[in-house]
Each structure stands twice: as C-alpha cells, then as structure tokens.
C-alpha cells in the first residue's frame, strides 16, 4: 500500500473554520449574548420570524455566532429547530386577546379605543445620532416608562373591521375550521391551502416578502395600494392542551405583529355593492413591513390574477424562504468540475463535427 490519499483538503477546511470563528476576536472585544438580546431587538425579531422559532435567547446567541449576518443566524436557528421533537400544537389563539402595545389604523383618523403609537422608529428622523457613539447610563428621564405605555383599557380595543362589518361594508368569510397544515412536517403540494400559504409567508425572508409584496401593489398585481385597516403589535398569549383532562395550559406570550389590510375587491360583480376585503399578515416579533407585505401577498394568492407572478403560489412560496434561496445560490461556489467537464465534452463535440 504505497499510495495514500492526500489529506490537504481536510487541513485547509479546518484552517478556514478556525479563521472564521476567531476573526471577530482578533479584531476586537467579545460581547455578551445578553447585550445583543437587549440592544438588537429588531434583528432578533426578524431572525425569529424567518426561522419560525420563537426564542429570544437562542436568537441572540445565533446572532452572536453569525456575527449579525441575518441569513447565517436564521440558518443556525432552523438547523437547531430540526433537532427538537415537536410534540404539541397550540390551541386556537385569538388576537383580540392580545396585550396590545401598539395599534394604529391608517384608514380612520380616530378609532374606538384610540390610536396607540407605542414604540416605533416611524417618527424618528434618520439622522445618525452622535450621542450613540458613547455608551448611555440608562434611559432618558423625559417620560415615565411604567405609566405612558399603558394608559389605555385593553378590554376596549375592538378591531377596526368590526365597525365596517356593522355597516355591511365588510362581509365576514365563513369560518374554515379545517386542521391547519404544517409545511415543516408535510411538504407543500400544489395547489396550496391557505394555511400553507400563511405559514410559508410568515416564515419568508423579510426582504423577499417585502419585495414581492411591493411588486404586487406597484404595478404587477392589484397595482393599487391597500389601506392598513389595523396594525397591532403586542404580546399574544399562547396555550397548549396536553389532553390530560385539565384543559389548556398557558405557555407564554409571543410578541406578534398583526395586519388587517383593506384590499380593493377584485372579484366583485358590477351590479353588486362594493365591499372591503382583507389581506392578513401575522408574524413573530415587531416586523411591521414584513407583516404588511404578507397581508398583500395573502390577498394576491387568495385572489389570483392570471399571468401575475405574485399571485402564483408556486412562484411566491418556492422562492421566499431564506434558507432555501441563500443555500441554493451559495452552493454555486462548490466545486462543479465533473459536470463542467461533461459540458466541455459537449462543446468540443459540436466544434469537431463542424
């Protein structure tokens, strides 16, 4: 046995991994996971939403390991998710029971229960703030953080859509109480069901969902923009039923963003009165842009227009998953010399025969 395999590949890979893992420490100081958890909430929200894995600690940990790279952090969360047995589903949760922290309607000046701005970057001027170059001692003392956020009655926040329903401008769809599909346990087959579409959209890559929703309203789909009936952000209580005879167990609050998008009615007959239709968005964490775009795509997929890519469920759902799209695009870096040799053979064959 004089000849042995060359082990160069394994060594080179090992060194590459070491360089990658230590790069941030070579360049600077380490950071506590806890600091990421409190300082990078919107990033954590996006990662949890795209990973379809609600756990702020694990998300912060994944972000640290990924050095803030979104696709890597989502990937780490998804891979970890695969190792966890999934034993229970939550019982039906009603977003009317949400502990609302922010709630705005773009469709009315005032709404029953009031517009609640909560915390939002919407009204900031996007000027780099020199003060942030320094580390702050604590929050500004200008408002009382215990009082201000909760000066409203949680029991008196009806949904904006209720008002339109009373007037007959919105007709409630018949309830669909079919057991929802779970695309992580059984792959989507087309035509898709609504539960598959909603699950696919809520796990979608934020940028991809936003871009496709934008294309739909800008000119390739409904080409007119919806009205946000209501945007809610808050803590949603979630329960599971172990079927042990003791009823439901409360397992925790999930921060969620919910959108009721008021859409132009595309299916209406000419003689009929006009009605409001709803596109629905619901995502983990405060991710308002994504939730709005989701509501647009939910509607476009529910009411497909012929020849419009953003109302084709295969086109949308097959291409918005972060792990899938980034994985396939990045795999192009892998060696492909066997197939390329096959292609060269074909190209040379063409030249020889001429």
């Amino acid at each position: 046995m004089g000849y042995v395999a060359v082990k160069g590949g394994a060594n080179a890979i090992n060194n590459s991994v070491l360089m990658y893992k230590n790069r941030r420490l070579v360049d600077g100081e380490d950071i506590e996971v806890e600091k990421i958890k409190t300082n990078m909430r919107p990033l954590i929200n996006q990662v949890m939403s795209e990973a379809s894995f609600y756990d702020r600690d694990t998300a912060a940990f994944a972000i640290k390991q990924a050095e803030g790279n979104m696709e890597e952090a989502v990937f780490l969360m998804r891979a970890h998710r695969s190792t966890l047995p999934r034993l229970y589903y939550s019982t039906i949760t009603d977003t009317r029971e949400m502990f609302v922290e922010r709630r705005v309607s773009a469709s009315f000046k005032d709404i029953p229960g009031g517009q609640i701005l909560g915390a939002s970057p919407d009204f900031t001027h996007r000027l780099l703030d020199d003060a942030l170059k320094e580390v702050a001692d604590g929050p500004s003392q200008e408002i009382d953080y215990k009082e201000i956020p909760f000066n409203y009655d949680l029991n008196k926040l009806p949904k904006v859509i209720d008002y339109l329903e009373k007037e007959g401008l919105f007709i409630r769809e018949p309830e669909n109480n079919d057991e929802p599909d779970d695309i992580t346990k059984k792959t989507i087959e087309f035509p898709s069901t609504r539960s598959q579409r909603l699950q696919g959209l809520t796990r979608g890559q934020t940028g991809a969902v936003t871009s496709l929703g934008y294309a739909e309203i800008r000119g390739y789909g409904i080409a007119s923009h919806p009205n946000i009936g209501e945007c809610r952000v808050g803590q949603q209580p979630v329960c599971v039923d172990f079927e042990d005879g003791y009823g439901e167990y409360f397992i925790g609050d999930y921060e969620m963003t919910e959108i009721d998008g008021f859409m132009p009615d595309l299916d209406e007959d000419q003689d009929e009165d006009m009605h409001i239709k709803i596109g629905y968005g619901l995502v983990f964490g405060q991710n308002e842009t994504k939730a709005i775009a989701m509501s647009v795509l939910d509607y476009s997929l529910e009411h497909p227009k012929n020849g419009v890519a953003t109302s084709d469920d295969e086109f949308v759902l097959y291409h918005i998953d972060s792990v899938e799209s980034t994985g396939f695009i990045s795999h192009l870096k892998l060696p492909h010399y066997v197939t390329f040799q096959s292609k060269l053979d074909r190209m040379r064959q063409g030249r020889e025969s001429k």
Partner: protein
Amino acid sequence: MSQNFAFLDEHSKKEIRRQTLKAIAIPGYQVPFASRELPIARGWGTGGLQLTLSLVGQEDIVKVIDQGSDESVNAVNIRNLIQSTTGVEDTIHTSEATIIQSRHRIPEVPLKPFQILVLQVPTPEPLRSVEPSERKTKILHGDKEYSGAYIKLFEQIMRHGHITDDADYPVLVNGRYVMAPSPIPRFDNPKMNHNDGLILLGAGREKKIHAVPPYTDVASLAFEDYPFEVEDFSDKVCRESGLSGVYMDELVDEETGETYYMTNDTSYMLEKMNEEEDLHANHR
C-alpha cells in the same frame, strides 16, 4: 448543545424512511417529504444527508465523495457532520462501505448487493427546464407525457447537430418515470441500469426523494438515429496511474502549460495503483 444520534430527532428519521420506502416501491417517482433543515446549507447536499442520517446505524461504514474525491470540500464537510453526530466508521474504499453518499459521481467500483448509494440532488424534476410549474410537471408525470423531454433533445439536434444535454442527462426508469439522475456525468448513467446496489436520490431544498432499486431498467433518453453518448475519454490516459476507460479530470501542468488527464475517482485510482505496486513487488 447535546444532539440525538445522527442529528435528526427520531420522528423525523422515521418520516424520511417511510418516504424512502415509497420511493423504492415506485422506481423513478419523486416522493415529497418534509425535509428538515440541517447544519449544512440547502443546496449543499441536505437531501442526500437526510437520507444517510435517517438510515445510518452504529454498524454502518460510510464513504462520502464529492466530484469523485473523498477529500473535496463538500465531502469532508459532510463526512465530518456524519461522524461527529454518529461516531460511525468511515472508509475511502467503495467496496468496504455500506452507505456511500456522493455528489456528481457514481464510483467506478461497481456496487454490491445490499450497498446503498445516496446521491445528492439539486433539481429532481427532469421536466423543470420545459415546465417551471410543479403542479403541471406532476400532471405530466401522471400522464406519462414526456414529449417535452424528447422535444428538448430534438431541438438541440436541430440547432447543434447533436444532443447538448451534458450532466444530469434524463433517464427512463422501469419504463415508467423519466427521472433526473442527479448531475452525474453521462458516463455514469449506464451504471444505474440493473445495478446490484440500491440507489437513493435526495433533494433537500426541493423536498423530494426518488430511488432506483436494484436490478431496475434504467435507459437514457435518446432517438434511434441519435443514440445516447457518454463523454469521450477514449484517447485519454491518466497521467498518474496509466488508467484508461474511466471518467477523467482535465488539468493543466503549471510548468509546461500542457493539458493532462487524471482519473476522477481518486480512491479507485489509489486502489489500482496499489494493486499494480503489489504485483510488481511479488514479481521481484
């Protein structure tokens, strides 16, 4: 964080094995499966890896190759993951392995009965280039409506005077389903026909499993007057080993600028070179 044997939880493995059995029962048919995310990126062999992880037991001996090499980056990476989550033995010798996971090649050493070859598949749908929609290709397979696949080859002949499909050349399995054999070179297509081993193909991102059970008819698509052709290495000799009649890599000698060829299946080449050396040693 602590992990289960072979990474995936047992529920997931069971689901994958069930879909694999279905794939074996319907040769060449793409069986949908849920497809878990793995610590390796989608598109980097997660379909093959899920098959391997769902099948591997403590007694198995695993070989992993990419581009014909046990040392290619993808192969090293996948083998490390399998080993770190299972602790099973690995080998570079095709004949010693019980499970062989491969990207882009079927080894030169023929499979034996009860060996399993797992191929990594990027695009399981052979009709995708003629029909982008999944629901439509499903109907085409159901109706055994493969004229699109043949017309594509016909158009290539019209345009270029010969078929231009290179690797991942479509095959008809068991006279029923047209199947993408994964991007193996055409050179490897005939090895699928009446193979002694079990060939499983996994597409993680596209969430499909398909299979060629042992002793199944596998025919590459062709026309009577335009027969199927493999890559032509007939006048090439491996510079390292003197082998011919194998799939070759084309390389350039940096010093002389000369093009030379080397056996692509590196473990096969080593085995052959060692056999040769032993033979010489015995003669002396």
